[in-house]
């Protein structure tokens, strides 16, 4: 089955939620199982009925792989495992397994307790779901079953984010999840080896962006924050609990320290300490610098950043507040936004991408008024800044990754159609490979010519190598091997004829040639034979020549001397068809001796 089929249930020409179905070699794999933050109805979860309209889903999916803990990549997992009833294997890295349940619980609270939604998974379901997860480590080769192998690579997008290489038989696919090709303040850059997959499924969030340098972005961010607080304004930075938040905290902390600033900085999240604990314990997943210095100094113990209390919202004066969630779609960040938005000295900095339907998305698109469900209308007079701190690969990074792993095809997901189109063209031009960008629900079939493993008999290889090396060196000479193809237990092997006969239990038909040379030599036949042996040993150095009962043998060549003591001897030379070269050579030798 040389085809690979991909059907995005999410992330097909959009950024809302990642859920991609991959079929190859008779295996079905689900890549990520995210939820869409912009919806409050069933559209928020992937359409699982696509996989199987009715009946159990487990038999249709061989495994689920979660790339990282962002909810647009794992948010629907408890729904799938606890409410749809998927019971098969689920894989993610250790940090993802540790952190995902916290974010899921956070979201659940917002959805159920604040919005009063029903038909949502419960806390217990999150716990039960995570219990079913198999945690994997980087580069560990995990055999899901006899044919399906997966392996995680560092993706550098958030703590524990991984790209996955997936192999069935001789076909392989790499799924990147979200990744980042430039190291940042707490994470390293994504890395993959030259694994030459048949298909690379890459995110393309920043397909057309070539981001300005990291330093510039940071300086820009700090300048904006500083200017705002200097004028007595309040800065709101909506973040997710883990990820960018830690990087920005490190950034502000060091800046505050260096500039000796006194404006209060708050991190509005009970989870801060816990979150930072995860970073401490999974420090092996952060970048080199943090790992090297962690014994002396813990990067995540902040001096200037204090916990936030809700009552601070109405405090006068400047302050900087980090609040969750990151897209201003619910929770505390949204509450703060509602209070601060109408004042123009304030500022909101959106450090990450916002999906359609969220308040974040609206204000980034210039909305000056935002209407809420309860008909509350908030005027947006505060400055709205967007800083691309989301650690996604930009166009250059995506091209770099393609260069690293040398895929035979590329498929783009997790991006906007127009931008994908641009990148697709670029990839096809530069790498001369096919690039695909299916929409949600659209199946993309990729034909992959596959190599078939064949075992070659060492005997054949040796014989070939002897033949090849016997010829004068010629770099252009092709090496050619002949054999008989056998199939056993679904495995092919190329054997030589004797091995085949042995394998199938028949004895081979032997063709033997015998010629006679007459030789005038007095004395017993045995003496003559000795003479011949000496001659052969001289001419055939390195061959094993044996003599017994007056019969000389070299490989399959037999030489027999007959005749009375004092008369002409008959020398019979006999050999099998395979040893024609040797046999005729020996015969020639004897003929020359006689003459």
């Amino acid at each position, binding site marked *: 089955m040389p085809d690979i089929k991909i059907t995005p249930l999410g992330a097909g020409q959009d950024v809302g939620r990642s859920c991609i179905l991959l079929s190859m070699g008779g295996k079905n794999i689900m890549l990520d199982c995210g939820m869409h933050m912009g919806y409050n109805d069933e559209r928020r979860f992937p359409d699982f009925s696509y996989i199987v309209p009715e009946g159990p889903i487990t038999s249709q999916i061989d495994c689920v792989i979660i790339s990282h803990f962002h909810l647009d990549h794992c948010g629907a997992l408890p729904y799938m495992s606890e409410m749809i009833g998927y019971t098969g294997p689920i894989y993610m890295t*250790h940090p993802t*397994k540790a952190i995902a349940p916290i974010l899921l619980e956070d979201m659940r609270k917002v959805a159920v307790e604040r919005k009063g939604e029903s038909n949502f998974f419960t806390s217990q379901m999150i716990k039960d779901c995570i219990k079913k997860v198999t*945690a994997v*480590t*980087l*580069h*560990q*080769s995990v055999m899901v079953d006899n044919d399906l192998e997966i*392996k995680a690579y560092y993706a550098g997008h958030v703590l524990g984010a991984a790209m996955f290489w997936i192999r069935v038989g*001789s076909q392989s696919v790499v799924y990147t999840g979200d990744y980042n090709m430039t190291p940042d303040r707490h994470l390293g850059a994504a890395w993959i080896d030259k694994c030459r997959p048949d298909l690379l499924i890459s995110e393309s969030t920043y397909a057309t962006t070539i981001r300005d340098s990291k330093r510039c972005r940071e300086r820009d961010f700090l300048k904006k924050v500083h200017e705002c607080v200097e004028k007595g304004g309040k800065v709101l930075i909506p973040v997710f609990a883990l990820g960018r938040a830690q990087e920005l905290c490190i950034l502000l902390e060091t800046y505050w320290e260096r500039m000796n600033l006194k404006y209060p900085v708050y991190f509005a999240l009970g989870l801060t300490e*816990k979150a930072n604990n*995860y970073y*401490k*314990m*999974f420090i*092996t997943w952060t970048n080199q610098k943090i790992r090297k210095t*962690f*014994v002396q100094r813990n990067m995540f113990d902040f001096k200037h950043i204090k916990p936030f209390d809700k009552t601070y919202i109405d405090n006068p004066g400047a302050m900087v507040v980090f609040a969750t969630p990151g897209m201003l779609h619910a929770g505390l960040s949204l509450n703060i936004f509602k209070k601060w938005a109408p004042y123009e000295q304030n500022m909101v900095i959106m450090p990450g991408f916002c999906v359609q339907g969220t308040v974040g998305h609206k204000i980034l698109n210039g909305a000056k008024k935002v209407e809420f469900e309860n008909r509350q209308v908030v005027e947006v007079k505060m400055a709205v800044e967007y800083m691309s701190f989301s650690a996604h690969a930009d166009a250059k990074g995506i091209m770099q990754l393609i260069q690293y792993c040398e895929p035979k095809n590329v498929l783009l997901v997790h991006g906007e159609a127009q931008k994908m189109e641009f990148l697709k063209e670029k990839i096809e031009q530069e790498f001369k490979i096919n690039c695909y960008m299916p929409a949600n629900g659209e199946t993309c079939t990729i034909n992959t*010519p*596959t*190599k*078939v*493993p*064949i*075992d*070659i*008999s*060492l005997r054949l*290889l040796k014989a*070939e190598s002897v033949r090849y090396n016997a010829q004068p060196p010629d770099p252009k000479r*092709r*090496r*050619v*091997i*002949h*054999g*008989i*193809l*056998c*199939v056993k237990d679904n495995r*092919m*092997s*190329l054997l030589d*004829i004797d*091995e*085949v*006969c042995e394998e*199938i239990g*028949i*004895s081979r*038909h*032997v*063709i*033997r*040639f*015998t*010629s006679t040379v007459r030789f005038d030599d007095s004395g017993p036949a045995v003496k003559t034979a000795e003479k011949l042996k000496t001659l052969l040993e001289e001419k055939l150095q390195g061959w094993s020549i044996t003599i017994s009962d007056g019969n000389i043998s070299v490989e399959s060549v037999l030489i027999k001397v007959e005749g009375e003591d004092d008369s002409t001897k008959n020398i019979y030379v006999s050999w099998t*068809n395979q040893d*024609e070269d040797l046999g*005729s050579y020996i015969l020639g030798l004897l003929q020359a001796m006689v003459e």
Partner: protein
Amino acid sequence: MKVYCLSSDAAKPCFVISFRGLMIMLDCGLSAQSVLSFLPLPPVPSARLAALPSYSPPHINDPLLEGELKECCGRVFVDSLPEFCPPLEQVVDFAQLDAILISNYTCMMALPFVTEGTGFKGQVYATEPTLQIGRFYLEELSEWLREAGGGAGGGAGGARRWKELLHLLPAPLSQAARPRAWRRLYSAQVLAKALARVRVVGYDERVELFGALEASPVSSGFCLGSANWVLRSPHEKIAYVSGSSTLTTHPRPINQVRAPAHPASSTRYVPHAPRPIKQVRAPRTPPINQVRALRTPPHQPGTCPAHPAPSTRYVTHAHHAPRPINQVRAPRTPPHQPGTCPAHPAPSTRYVPRAPRPINQVRAPAHPAPSTRYVTHAHHAPRPINQVRAPRTPPHQPGTCLHAHHAPSPHQPGTCPAHPAPSTRYVPRAPRPINQVRASTLTTHPRPINQAALRGADLLLLAGLTQTPAHNPDNMLGDLCVHAGVTLRGGGAVLLPVYPSGVLYDLLECLSMHLDTAGLSQIPLYVISPVADASLAYSNILAEWVSTAKQARVYVPEEPFPHAALARAGRLRHAARLHDHSFSEHFRTPCVVFCGHPSLRFGAAVHLLELWAANPAHAVIFTEPDFPYLEALAPFQPLAMKAFHCPIDTSLNYSQCNKLVRELRPRALAVPEQYAPPRGAAGAGGAGAGARACVTADVPVLALRRGGVAAVAARRTLARAAAAPALLPALRPRAPLTAELHVRDNVLTLLPPPAPLQPSAEPDYDLGPPNVDALVRCLAAEGLGAARVEASPAGAVLHLPRHDALLHVERAHTHVFCEPRGRPALRRALRAAARRDPAPL
């Protein structure tokens, strides 16, 4: 395939295998036994060591030998910088090595000797914890040896002459193994260069070695990051098992099922690190004395009518029960003074084999004095021998200060203003009543074992079995806790000479728990090592390498090991050096000090031992299995301080190992000669009474000795190639195939044959006899004329009169008698006949 053995120390192995054209070194162990021949190097000058008398052999006056040897209590030591025994150099050219695979951090100390200055160009592979903790071990070692300039007794540090005069020296020095091959430790720079070569790999990662092999480290359950290596080609498999632990072979304890929530509060030995080698769980046999353990309520010995003579009773049990006796012997009652308890009158002279015995007399280990044997009562803490003899040791306060010149003022804990009352801040998580703790039975790792990755190898190479097969780690840990408790209660300090990682983490956890339950939670724990801070910090970030139970804590998130919490609570302090001001300020006794080096030849342990040796209230407890403790103590004699031997070596013992080998079903087994059955032993497992323990298997066992090489027959008959997509249409089963062979980096690819292919290049596949009619036609076509055909009993005879040729065509063979010049045409005809009407396969 060949296996070279370069180390004589089976616990510090070093092998090289040549396989598929590659030279691969497996482990790189550094044998440190040699350091025992040297005088200790104290971190600060020691007057005692400096004053030891020089030694020279009788009737020898060799000025070159001057100052090289010193004598202490009848033993002769070399006064010089200690030397180590690196792997053998001459057998394998290190420049030819393609790769070095490290199994765990105890087996990589010789790395710089192999990779630096030898022309080594290969790649070194190890897991991340192996690299990091190995670095700690190596850095600690090189730091200590760097600090010490020369020998302790004033020797210059380069003693060499004694090696020439070895035969004249007294034992055991005269038996030193190949001292001329001993080398000084490498410098820190060389060490750093060697470590920089290591490429970090994860469990189950497939590392491709030059296209010829795939190497995978798989969890071995022995320590953090420890791995067995599996080398695989498509048709062969070699498993290298070094330093493995399968603790699940024990019966499953009952209270483990009942109270799994408090695994840490007992002193059972639960190895922290190791992800267990997965293995089938042993059948759940209830421990034999489980009933007894349950029905025995805490009671004062001798006061319970049901147990009138607990002493004999428990001792008897100890002899019969398969279960170790530490849980029986465990102090349900506070230890009491010897001889004062009516229930346990006087120590008898019966010999209980397991009773740990302190040694404070110079005594050759080979000649144990039977008179000093004693029974340890089950309820009693084992007593050191000198206390048995002189039970009324006058009460005293131990020296409480590190610096002898500080003139320490003895004081009770809490009574001294400088050393305020012990902090009570530390609240153990789940302290269980002591008797409940003691009811716990032998523990094992609850997770089932799966050895799948090692199974069915063509060759199983085995090293790193336990060095103390007679000592069960569980029992030893129990003993250790008891000894420590008794010593501390008596006001003494406890010294544990340990490595800076490994079992240390468990000891910290278990001992602190034990002290809590024993009412000794005010006792401070100290860890002194140049790498203490890094080692303790590092252990808590290796979540992905610890056991499931420890891993579960990370998800909370809590540190997998409690020592960070102990440090925050002020209970545990660590320092790089004893004399760091911030540390010595807080130092007080009684206390427990963990420090290196286990050989007692360098490191802080040397100083503490010098300081405490004369005081019988203190105790040194040996847990590391690498050095014979009597040898380690020899230069500190005479010793009044108590010494206990509680080796904790979680590696496989022989019976676990044999079980493992049986389950792994290798085709051949190779082991260091120490493990192999004695020569001449009849058959597998033919061990009579008194035979030494050995590895037995019902497959060929190769015994490897240092400098030796063993050849292992290759079974391989096939090589893996890949057929290019374009060749797929040509792939027909049971049919001849001609293809172009493309070889690059050991990878074989088959492509469609180059066109045009010369017909003669195709070989003959004459599987059956030629069809006679077809043959006649072909002979004619070759211009050989008409053949006369005669039927024969076995087939047919064809006669070509013109060429005087005869062809006997039979079922199994065709025999052609002909003149040499007629043969080419005959062959063509035969081939054509075979082609035209090929015999079916």
